[in-house]
């Protein structure tokens, strides 16, 4: 897939624009001037070595962490004062790492919770819609979240994100800890989302699998974007390696 090919009409409409973003934990700076963009309907892979700041970037974009400098615009709107609630409502949805679901309540309640502020009928429809991506957990609607396997929990976590009908879905290492078959199942959803015009920002360690479903790729190292390329470019592996080590 080359940049913007199948994303059709939305292709060049800017959805997320991040400029010179800085953020961190307390006094420790982690992101040092990150600039990147995601167009409507495109899938962008965000790669980088451990500790590069990928998770920190997603947490800052979704409003879990305050930014110290820089600008984030989502769908033309300045997200300066947006917390997680506002981000989610605007359609900027973050699925955190580690197949994080609510273990004490049922699968169904997990999904209802993700859309708790929607009108009742709408909410039920959204839950069914999200479950249509994952028949294997639709069969377990009444089980507790904690009773699911790791792979099923990851699907539930993604499905929770889908209940919000995101315009940009940010997935943090959805493949972590999953068997190869399940990795393909989860990444297959990314392709389906792309086909329906939902943009995805995908943080992954499995470089080849991530590139296979993406339009473009950014690499982050030590809190800075060190590479920006089309996912179809040849020799990406080599370039990524060099970018990671600052050669």
């Amino acid at each position, binding site marked *: 897939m080359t940049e913007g090919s199948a994303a059709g009409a939305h292709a060049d409409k800017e959805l997320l624009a991040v400029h010179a973003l800085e953020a961190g934990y307390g006094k420790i700076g982690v992101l040092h001037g990150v600039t990147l963009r995601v167009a409507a309907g495109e899938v962008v892979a965000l790669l980088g070595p451990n500790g590069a700041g990928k998770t920190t970037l997603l947490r800052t974009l*979704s*409003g*879990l962490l305050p930014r110290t400098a820089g600008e984030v615009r989502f769908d033309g709107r300045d997200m300066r004062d947006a*917390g*997680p*609630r506002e981000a*989610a*409502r605007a359609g900027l*949805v*973050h699925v*955190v790492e580690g197949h*994080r*679901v*609510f*273990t*004490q*309540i049922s699968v169904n*309640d997990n999904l*209802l*919770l*993700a*859309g*708790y*502020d929607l009108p009742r009928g709408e909410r039920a429809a959204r839950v069914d819609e999200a479950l249509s991506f994952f028949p294997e957990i639709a069969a377990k609607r009444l089980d507790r979240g904690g009773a699911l396997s790791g792979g099923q929990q990851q699907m539930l976590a993604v499905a*929770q994100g889908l209940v*919000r009908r995101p315009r940009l879905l940010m997935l943090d290492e959805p493949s972590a800890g999953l068997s190869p078959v399940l990795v393909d199942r989860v990444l297959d959803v990314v392709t389906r989302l792309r086909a329906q015009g939902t943009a995805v920002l995908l943080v992954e360690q499995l470089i080849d699998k991530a590139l296979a479903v993406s339009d473009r790729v950014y690499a982050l190292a030590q809190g800075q974007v060190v590479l920006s390329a089309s996912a179809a470019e040849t020799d990406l592996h080599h370039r990524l390696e060099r970018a990671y080590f600052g050669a």
Partner: protein
Amino acid sequence: MILGQVVLNGFLVGAVYALFSSGLTLIWGMMNVVNFAHGDFVMIAMYVAFVVFTALHLGPAVFVPLAAVLLFLLGVLVYFSLVRHVMRGPMLAQILGTFGLALVLRYATLWVFSANFVSLPDNLLGPVVTVAGLRLEPSRVVAGLAALTLTIGLHLLLTRTALGSRLLAVAEDRNAAMLVGIRPDPMQALAWGIGAACTGVAGALIALFFYISPTVGESLALIAFVVVCLGGFGSVPGALVAGLLIGVIESLSAFWIGPANKDVVVFILFLAVLWFRPQGLLGKA
């Protein structure tokens, strides 16, 4: 038959223990903050009952709901004015924060009401009836059954309603809850309100047959901590079972070795549980 009587009385008191302990376990489970003033909340509710009865001559139909509302408000107030701030501080600040609150409540009560023990009339809800050889004191029976019902109600609120899902979600993972758009602050304030309302109802009910004094909260707090440890932190069903168990054990030990020693028995039990099952009798390892 006398043993049956002892067990029955223990069970009825135990239901009240279960109710106020559920409040403590809810607050604990929601935000890992220990409310050291919990016993004193119960004490305040007992004085609400006492004042309403002596000054206004109104019975439990008025003072129980009133205590629930007042303590709910106290819980929310304490959350916003104290807990929210000390939660960001070190562990010691959290402990001293609610411990200090306990002292303030205790000494304020002492100042207003003096250290004298007071009580409500024995037969406020009517005379004792004897059924199949068991003496049923209406005040104990009403208190026990009402507390049992409300504790089960609290469990259902948490597990069967959308509001309960939101509370449990914040309890389990604040960040994940925020990402689905839930604001943790109102949920945590609500948990304090509900937790304190549990002490409100329990205190007003237990006032029907307990002596009331500014220091009564000390032994009630001990009971609440033991119940929460036994039942597993954050578990309302655990608190229910453990509350009933403690009520019965306490009643039996008062019967066998004398009322003066019942707190000691409860505390030894507490240490034994910490020693052998630190996760609680019903808690998961």
